[in-house]
């Protein structure tokens, strides 16, 4: 269950690709048409880590860390791969198609084990779908983000949303630089833990639901006690709704088996490798998203 413990390594890793991979990996770079404002990224089979960074450059740059071109048996014996996912048209295990408004980047099946580092203009919107075992890091985007990950952990940070995020089996660590106020943000998880940081002055309506696990926060939420909906608290789910700083856009967090932690941005606890212990415990000690820390929900009230 202690999946969050992997995260420090993941964070460290995230600092490397920009430098490390650029030096060694195979690179593919292009400038999309002016009308393009969206990137769709799909990996249906990948074992590497994927790092997506928003930049203020115009081009899209992809670096494959250790992609090995498969031996071209196909053409030698006259057989062609039956995978409809697409053919490698980049030389680094990806198919890239450009339409009027969007660019589609799709991993071909044998891109499986490579790490990819992808730089995309930060105002683009993103639709990311990854069904592999690697970890995913997405950072520095100003547009809408949709992410669905099936296995690895995902860190998504320095974004403003709106964000629609899902992880099936991994942890999901999300930090907002600000929260976009016009369309809702929704984050769901099946088995992993979900840790979301937002600026403490964010105005939002909150909806948090966890079927089998805990919800914890160190934000000052005005919990909603006047429920119009007679079902919501009676169907065996643990639902909390409330208002933050007078209310605003909807942020909904839902999980089945993992914990949900909603915290103030800037509170680094749990995200960075833990420094040697200072003599005094930090103030919001329970919010540290180590699953070992799991206590009962009433701590949310303690924190307020």
């Amino acid at each position, binding site marked *: 269950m202690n999946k969050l413990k992997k995260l420090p390594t993941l964070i460290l890793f995230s600092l490397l690709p920009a430098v490390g991979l650029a030096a060694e990996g195979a690179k593919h770079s292009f400038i999309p048409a002016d009308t393009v404002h969206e990137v769709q990224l799909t990996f249906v089979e990948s074992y590497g880590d994927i790092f997506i960074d928003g930049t203020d450059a115009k081009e899209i740059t992809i670096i494959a860390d250790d992609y090995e071109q498969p031996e071209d048996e196909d053409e030698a014996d006259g057989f062609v791969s039956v995978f409809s996912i697409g053919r490698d048209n980049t030389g680094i295990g990806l198919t890239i198609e450009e339409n009027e408004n969007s660019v589609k980047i799709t991993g071909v099946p044998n891109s499986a084990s490579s790490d990819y580092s992808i730089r995309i203009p930060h105002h683009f919107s993103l639709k990311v779908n990854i069904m592999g075992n690697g970890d995913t890091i997405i950072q520095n985007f100003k547009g809408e983000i949709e992410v669905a990950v099936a296995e690895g952990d995902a860190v998504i940070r320095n974004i403003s949303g709106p*964000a629609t995020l899902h992880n099936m089996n991994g942890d999901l660590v999300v930090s907002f630089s600000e929260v976009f106020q016009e*369309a809702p943000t929704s984050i769901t998880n099946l088995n992993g833990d979900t840790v979301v940081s937002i600026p403490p002055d964010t105005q939002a309506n909150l909806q948090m639901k966890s079927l089998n696990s805990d919800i914890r926060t160190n934000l000052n939420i005005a919990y909603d006690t006047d429920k119009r909906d007679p079902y919501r608290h009676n169907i065996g789910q643990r639902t909390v709704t409330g208002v933050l700083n007078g209310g605003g856009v909807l942020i909904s967090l839902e999980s089945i088996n993992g914990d949900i932690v909603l915290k103030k941005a800037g509170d680094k606890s749990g995200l960075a490798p833990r420094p040697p212990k200072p003599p005094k415990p930090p103030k919001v000690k329970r919010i540290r998203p180590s699953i070992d820390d799991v206590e009962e929900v009433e701590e949310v009230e303690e924190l307020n």
Partner: protein
Amino acid sequence: MKCEKISRQMTALWENSQEPSLPEDVRRHLGQCESCREEWEQLSVLMAELDAVEEVQPSTRLRENFYSMLDNAKAAPESGSGPKNTLIEPTIWKFTPWAGSIAAGLALLLAGFWIGSQQTDSLVESVPQPKTVAAQELESLQGQIESMKEMMAVYMMEQRSASKRIQAVGYTDEMSKLSPDLFEALRQRLNQDDNVNVRLASLNALTRFAHQENVRAALVDSLPRQIHPVMQIMLIDLMVGIDEKRAREPMQQLLNSAITPLEVKDKALRGLGQLL
């Protein structure tokens, strides 16, 4: 002397960590002291090995025994030994995870009663006195606004952005009634949207109307159409919550199917036990 202190410090670094980093002074000491370095290496290996020991799963007997013990305890009259409920719990936290079917049935009954009473209230209000013109206008205006919102919601549910679709689905939170168009739109999101968060939002929206027969039927019908485990689990949870026995069949099918994920089977199995 110093080594002893360093050595203690090194062990303490592992409290709740899998790969602690060494503080500068310890690192410096290790640079000079071979025996401490060796100790650190051994400690790291050992901790890693300890962490790698896998958990052994108990037999299913344990769970069975636990739940039958729990059932017995629930059936037994409250042992008067302890103090009575002296705490006022904040309402918001008062949920009953895994409410048994009895509790859920009761909730349903209460909900029905509540809705019934709301309706009677409005009847009592509107029938005896003829309305003033202003009140009638207001009412018709409100009606217009609601149907406008409804149109907007239906329209917006087709948008490309998942966030906007969720927003559209959320508009139904403000609506007192579920019109046929809106119902159809929500149902389509529930069953066909390719984003699981949108599906889930639609399920939550429909849950508010789970007292309506057409909604219940649609929810039962939706279960076999869902392929994402999150949707399967949340739907089963709702079916148990509203004591919808027609869901037994699709639940049984999920249980029998070889491709159903374990979490879902678990939920279905427990659900079947509750939906008797």
